[in-house]
């Protein structure tokens, strides 16, 4: 029966090629616009670490005072060096890591005939690798002792390893970064979580994978400055000159992440944090009551506004556009079907039931949907290339035509057109055979 409906549908579509083509094109454009914007939206709003995100938290401490962050009680989105180190030393969480973004220049070995080049990385602590589930191709990260001994260790990315050592196991070899030799202890396998939740407060949410990781303590010893934001608006007096003056200042620039596996530990950490700030008030450093916050990973992404507003607005507009296409298809299908009221009358008179008529026209709508979906797929693929126009390259690159997306595109088109076909088919099924035959 279905095959017969399909034959009828194709026959009927062939009879008015222009109208059919119009419906297919409109449906394809609507579906492609929606799917392209949806692909981008899904890519930027995903959970980067789904199995762990509920356990990872960012503590915030108000070191600026109520007069400086009056607007919606926005606390500084990073910590001072003093606070970060105090929280690291306290070890109040199961795991904790201090992080700041750095940039360095690789000076290749003399034999390589390469010019020095810049690489991006993070100064961080040993727990970083286990907390964020960093996979290693060779070796592993440094351990807690490495943090304490301010070890000269470094973990590099697979890509940097490829570039410098042609992908060979480089554990134990030396990497010259800005004139300092570091001992390579690990090669990180392809690892690039998006959005990069631990660095969104510096605006590095999307982009290429980091090239290297070195111990936070070592980076501090070497006076390696942060490549991210440094906000000194909390300090009421000029920051003392020099590196140590900066470390002891009220400037915020260190990110801190803690892992809290259950509700009890979350509560305990919250209390610890609050007590810490209260202690700062007692000691005279803060002139205000303890004001602290603890965000989990997804709440943090939301708080920092990681999803660009452009992606949401364009998704909304594209969805509205699809709705118009849908309404339009209903209208065109109605016109097309009702024009053939005579045929329907004949079919009904020859014994076709209302259900048969209904099925026939839904099959016709579905056929248009499949064609629209396939064309829409093509347009979506083209649209993916167009995303570089609208979004920054790091974000645009995330939008890919996956198998799931291909299925979703065709499914959306078919569902939408069948939905659009419901009303016209219902109207067709209600055609009075006697009236139609008489009027011929």
């Amino acid at each position, binding site marked *: 029966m279905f095959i017969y409906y399909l034959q009828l549908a194709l026959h009927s579509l062939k009879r008015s090629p222009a109208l059919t083509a119009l419906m297919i094109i409109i449906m394809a454009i609507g579906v492609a616009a929606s799917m392209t914007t949806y692909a981008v939206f899904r890519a930027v709003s995903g959970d980067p670490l789904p199995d762990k995100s509920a356990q990872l938290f960012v503590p915030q401490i108000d070191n600026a005072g109520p007069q400086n962050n009056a607007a919606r009680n926005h606390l500084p989105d990073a910590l001072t060096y003093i606070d970060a180190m105090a929280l690291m030393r306290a070890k109040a969480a199961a795991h904790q890591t201090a992080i700041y973004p750095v940039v360095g220049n690789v000076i290749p070995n003399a034999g390589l005939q390469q010019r020095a080049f810049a690489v991006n990385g993070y100064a961080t602590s040993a727990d970083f690798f286990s907390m964020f589930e960093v996979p290693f191709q060779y070796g592993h990260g440094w351990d807690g002792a490495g943090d304490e001994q301010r070890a000269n260790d470094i973990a590099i990315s697979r890509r940097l390893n490829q570039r410098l050592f042609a992908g060979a196991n480089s554990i134990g070899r030396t990497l010259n970064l800005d004139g300092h030799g570091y001992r390579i202890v690990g090669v990180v396998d392809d690892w690039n979580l998006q959005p990069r939740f631990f660095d969104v407060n510096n605006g590095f949410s999307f982009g290429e994978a980091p090239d290297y990781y070195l111990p936070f303590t070592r980076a501090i010893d070497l006076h390696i400055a942060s490549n991210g934001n440094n906000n000194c*608006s909390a300090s009421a007096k000029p920051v003392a000159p020099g590196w140590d003056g900066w470390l002891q200042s009220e400037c915020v620039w260190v990110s801190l992440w803690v892992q809290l596996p259950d509700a009890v530990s979350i509560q305990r950490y919250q209390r610890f944090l609050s007590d810490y700030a209260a202690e700062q008030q007692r000691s005279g450093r803060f002139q205000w009551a303890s004001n602290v916050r603890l965000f989990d990973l997804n709440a943090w992404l939301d708080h920092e506004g990681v999803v660009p507003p452009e992606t949401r607005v364009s998704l909304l507009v594209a969805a509205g556009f699809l709705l*118009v296409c849908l309404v339009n298809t209903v*209208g065109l299908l109605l016109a097309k079907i009702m024009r053939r009221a005579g045929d329907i009358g004949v079919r009904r008179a020859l014994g076709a039931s209302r259900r048969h008529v209904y099925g026939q026209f839904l099959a016709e709508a579905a056929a248009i949907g499949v064609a629209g979906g396939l064309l829409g797929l093509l347009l979506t693929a083209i649209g993916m290339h167009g995303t570089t126009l609208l979004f920054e390259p790091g974000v645009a690159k995330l939008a890919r035509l996956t198998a799931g997306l291909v299925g979703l595109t065709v499914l959306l088109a078919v569902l939408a057109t069948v939905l659009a076909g419901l009303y016209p088919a219902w109207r067709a099924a209600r055609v009075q055979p006697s009236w139609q035959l008489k009027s011929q």
Partner: protein
Amino acid sequence: MQIRPIVSALWHHKGGTVLIVLQIALTLAIVCNALFIIHARVNRLSRPSGVEEASVLVIQNQWLGERTPTQLQALMASDLDTLRQVPGVVDAYASNAYPLGDSGWSKGVRYSVDQRSPASSTAIYFADEHTLATLGLKLVAGRNFHADEIGDMGARDSLLPRVIIITRALADRLFPKDDAVGKRICVGVAPPSTIIGVVERMQTWIGSYSNAWMEQSTLVPFHLLSGGMIYVVRTQPGMTERIASTGPQALLAANPLRVIGQGDVKTYTQIRAIAYRKDRGMAILMGVICAVLLATTAAGIVGLTSFWVGQRRRQIGVRRALGATQADILGYFCTENLLISVGGVLLGTVLALLLNALLVDRFEMQRLSLDYVIAGVVALVLLGQSAVLVPAWRASRLSPVEATRVM
């Protein structure tokens, strides 16, 4: 022209009528808001930066290894000399940031040291006596820095300028009634600095953070002694592209112990394109959606009206036989479409305002001005009328004999 028969005919075709009304309404709602977004984005990306963009480029330089401040000072001086000797280069200076760039410094500005919260925010640009000439900034009051006023500042030193030059936007903000030149303000937590000059315009670096104080910038008379520096270069007209390659070559030839990577040399054309990529993309996307949407709606109107004309051949024939002129028939369909359009735009205006309320609420956009709604209404009514013309004209050309003949 009588309205009643048209209304009763429409009532007979409730389904189709409601569909077109709905489509016109949705189209109006989306088109109004899309036009509004386009306008806002185009406004943003056509803001002047104050820089003579056609002939300025920037080179980001990173020295290899650690250098003492004295070494950095000598290296910067010799680099600027090297750059100024490249054929086609007019002037150059070194800074921490540039207008429309992707990062920079900012400070709060206070009238006095003990004022608790800042009166305004400002971008901080390191500058010397060459800065105004290099960027092509227009001095509207006071004077430029003198060479002997330019100091050196280490990367970790506090910013303590004695004299500063500010933009007119900042001057107007701080001293709305007075002349700013000669006044003293505190930059960050520094003791008061004297304003010696006001430039017409100099945009800040781009970012959501600096949006609120887009043109409020301060030039401070220091060379920043840091391993990473930005050289800003003014070229002769039409020479920027050439100097984008010869400039870095000259620097590398003079001293190879540095990194100037692929993305580190940018002309202002590139800087502007990067800075406003999202705005331009959004405007183009909205424009395309508007165009396709209007085309879709027009196609829908043509399709449905054609169908109605086909359905009413006999009635048209009867009317013609009873003396209706071709113009009467044409008028009938145009009026019918007008009625539908009016219904559509009325509903659409409500939808447009609702959609805008959603955008305002969720995306901090501005309120839709009524001009856009009026423009959208006019556009859609005209679109409807022109879409209906072809099928209506065809209907009016039906001869009474043919139309009433049994098919």
